[in-house]
């Protein structure tokens, strides 16, 4: 069964005819060729596929594309400024060496963007709690935690 889906991705309207069972992440990666959103576990545990849907962090492997009908989706490709300048959260990851292999990174950044909106100056513990659904095997989380604390402060305009 084929269905038509339409949504906005990184500010651009997109639509496609898809098999009804097509996951949102498959639509993003295979149809739109936005391959920055990764699939690490296909069971909604690792968080590598995290995107923002209407501003809220969701795991794009855990919903079908149809469920995002009419939604506003932001992927990692849409986070930096159009001129390529990194968003403060991305810059914080770079400055704090918050990434190694880079595979979990887009999900980490997307989750942090949502988290930082409600936590302009988070504690270490709050950041660790926020990462419950995002797995990293490289960094031991040490520098991810520091990155998100710094990125959240930068987003709130704090030094």
């Amino acid at each position, binding site marked *: 069964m084929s269905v038509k889906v339409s949504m906005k991705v990184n500010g651009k309207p997109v639509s496609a005819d898809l*098999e009804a*069972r097509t996951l949102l992440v498959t639509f993003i*990666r*295979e149809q739109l*060729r*936005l*391959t*920055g*959103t*990764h*699939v*690490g*576990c*296909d*069971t909604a*545990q*690792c968080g*590598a596929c995290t995107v923002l849907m209407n501003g809220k962090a969701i795991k794009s492997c855990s919903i079908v594309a149809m469920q995002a009908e009419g939604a506003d989706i932001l*992927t*990692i*490709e849409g*986070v*930096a400024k159009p001129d*390529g300048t*990194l968003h403060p959260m*991305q810059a914080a*990851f*770079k*400055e704090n*060496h918050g*990434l*190694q*292999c*880079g*595979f*979990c*990174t*887009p999900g980490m*950044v997307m989750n942090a963007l949502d988290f930082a909106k409600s936590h302009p100056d988070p504690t*270490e513990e709050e*950041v*660790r*709690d926020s*990462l*419950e659904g*995002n*797995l*990293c*095997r*490289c*960094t*031991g*989380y*040490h*520098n*991810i*935690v520091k990155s998100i604390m710094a990125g959240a402060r930068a987003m709130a305009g704090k030094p």
Partner: protein
Amino acid sequence: MTASLIGARIQRKEDYRFLTGAGLYTDDVALPGQAYAAFVRSPHAHARIKKIAADQAKKSPAVLAVYTGADLAAAKVGGLPCGWLITDVNGQPMKEPPYPPLAQGKVRHVGERVAVVIAESLAQARDAAELIEVDYEVLPALVDPVKAKGAPAIHEAAPDNTCYVWALGDKAAVDSAFAKAAHVTKLDFVNNRLIPNAIEPRAANATYSRAEAAYTLYVASQNPHVERLLMTAFVLGLPENKVRVVAPDVGGGFGSKIYLYPEDVVVTWAAKQLNRPVKWTAERTESFVSDAHGRDHVTTAELALDRDGRFLALRVRTTANLGAYLSTFASCIPTILYATLLAGQYTTPLIHCEVTAVFTNTTPVDAYRGAGRPEATYVVERLVETAAREMKLDPAGIRRKNFIRQFPYQTPVALCYDTGNYEATLDAVMKMADVAGFKQRKEESLRKGRLRGLGYACYIEACGIAPSNVAGSLGARAGLFEAGEIRVHPTGTVTVFTGSHSHGQGHETTFAQVVADRLGLPMENVDIVHGDTSKVLFGMGTYGSRSIAVGGTAIVKALDKIIAKGRKIAAHLLEAAEADIEYDRGVFKVAGTDKQKTFGEVAFAAYVPHHYPLDKLEPGLNENAFYDPTNFTFPAGSYVCEVEVDRDTGATQVVAFTAVDDFGKVINPMIVDGQVHGGLAQGIGQALTEGCRYDSTGQLLTGSFSDYAIPRAGDVPLFKLDTRETPCTHNPLGVKGCGEAGAIGAPAAVMNAITDALGVKDLPMPATAQTVWRSMHKAA
């Protein structure tokens, strides 16, 4: 350029692409017309395949092909080879049963590949795979490695399920030292089986060009050249020059992506059969059942001491579980990379280790971060700490009493340590961790209802793998050098080609620092290329913390050749004698004069040779080098872990972890710290949360992230790190390697801390809340 780039915390060149979604991992590669593969895997640990009914699958929509082991056998596709020959105590070669890419007649572990379906879409391939009916005659499964002997044979080639019995050291001398010892400390333990779980699942995408009669394989691999060599020469019988292997961005490896895997072979072979690119990406459950696992030792270890706590002898007996088949480097992990490290940081004069390596109906086991060295460190450091407690000696003091202080030091287990300063790292870690204040912290914890414990681990590892002649004499079937090439472009920018592979380590930055520093060029003028057999002349890849020590040195050797040739060109341009030309940070100068040519001018002259000594020199500025190390490197360090145990629940938290490592010279401390953080988290994971479990029928009980707990952010603390530096004596950078240290040292430190908190002799890993709670209630 004035300040040295060596030792500078330079932000990574690779980060921008990863942070903006522009990385290119294997599953991101989309080849025109690609088809998709889905593997049918065995649901049984041990069974005879009576029949495979694939007609329905073949007829289902958009299916291009279904292949089984019979098809591969008919096409004369060979089995997967093992890269290291271990010789048995009786002088016999290890047993090497065939490892077919698709099962032939029998399956030997859950998850073994029985058939592959290739279809137009992934969904169609998976749907059709569901339609394949395999008729199995289920056989009794062997799961427990210590019960291997006498169990029904898994392989005809190994009737007693034993791959080899191997030993190192002087058994008679060790036994006699034990007979005279004032004290013997004995421990029986399991080094728990781990599942690596890089967050990027394995993936492969192969294509065949009829025009060139050549294959290209994109694959998530740590060593594309080795993958190509093994696949062409041993499995598919293809000319190496007709196969290109590309390992693009790779999302973590930790050992699990070193090996040649059956899926890689099958998609490559199928691409030619179908004249279509064939792509496969593992689902996470496939990673759990088919990526090579790590560790899984059952060990009895004894330390003999004199009355003052001096180590007299060490006796170790280990049964190593190799799983169902010999993975690429499986045989050398519990032998060459394990027993040789049993001296640790100590002068123990006599050591004997016997290893029985067995086949079981479980996923193959191979190198996982640390590979043999964490197991050795666990043996030594758990014994040392336990001995100190039994003899009422200070655990730091007993270590100091036995530290090696004279270098070079020849151990009784084959290695010769070139340099080290174990006292320095132990002193530093004790200060940083405020060991002196521990008693007070313990009392504070107790007031909150928590038991606090402190544990040490002083580890050593052999890295910079490896001197080829030594490795060859120990059974390696390949060389272990590294290759590097420096291509200077006419305008003076530089591309560096390295046989090392970066999958998180930041080589594009660290190696660029080395090159930019030596040549005196800006970092942005230097690019590092790796991971493509069509670009990089050769390579042995990245594992065993070898990249900077071996790969980095190959680059330095090539740089020396570039500078040597540049001096010749400059001598001609400056009308001076070559002996008078000095190279200093980007400028060739005539010594004692102000006559000079920049690096860029010399490069330009090499490519636009209008005024050039063509009678003496070829145009161009491009050099390569191969470097084969003369010895291993020996990173070492001292770790202190503090834990708190909740007395009501047994839940254990690492509340402080301090690590002082000696990696020799450090190129980029920011990157090195990151490597240690990651290693420590994996080591803490082994100690506290990660344990692979099979049931008695060989079903994997820990086959998802719900059942197998890799550490989450809340499971680890902020780490306190520092380094001490004794430069490696036998490579020009003085570097030793840092990738595995954390995973090697952490488990023993954590378990020493927990046993200290609980006041018990031993506890199995992982020390989950349940395990700890049971131990507390048993003790009470």
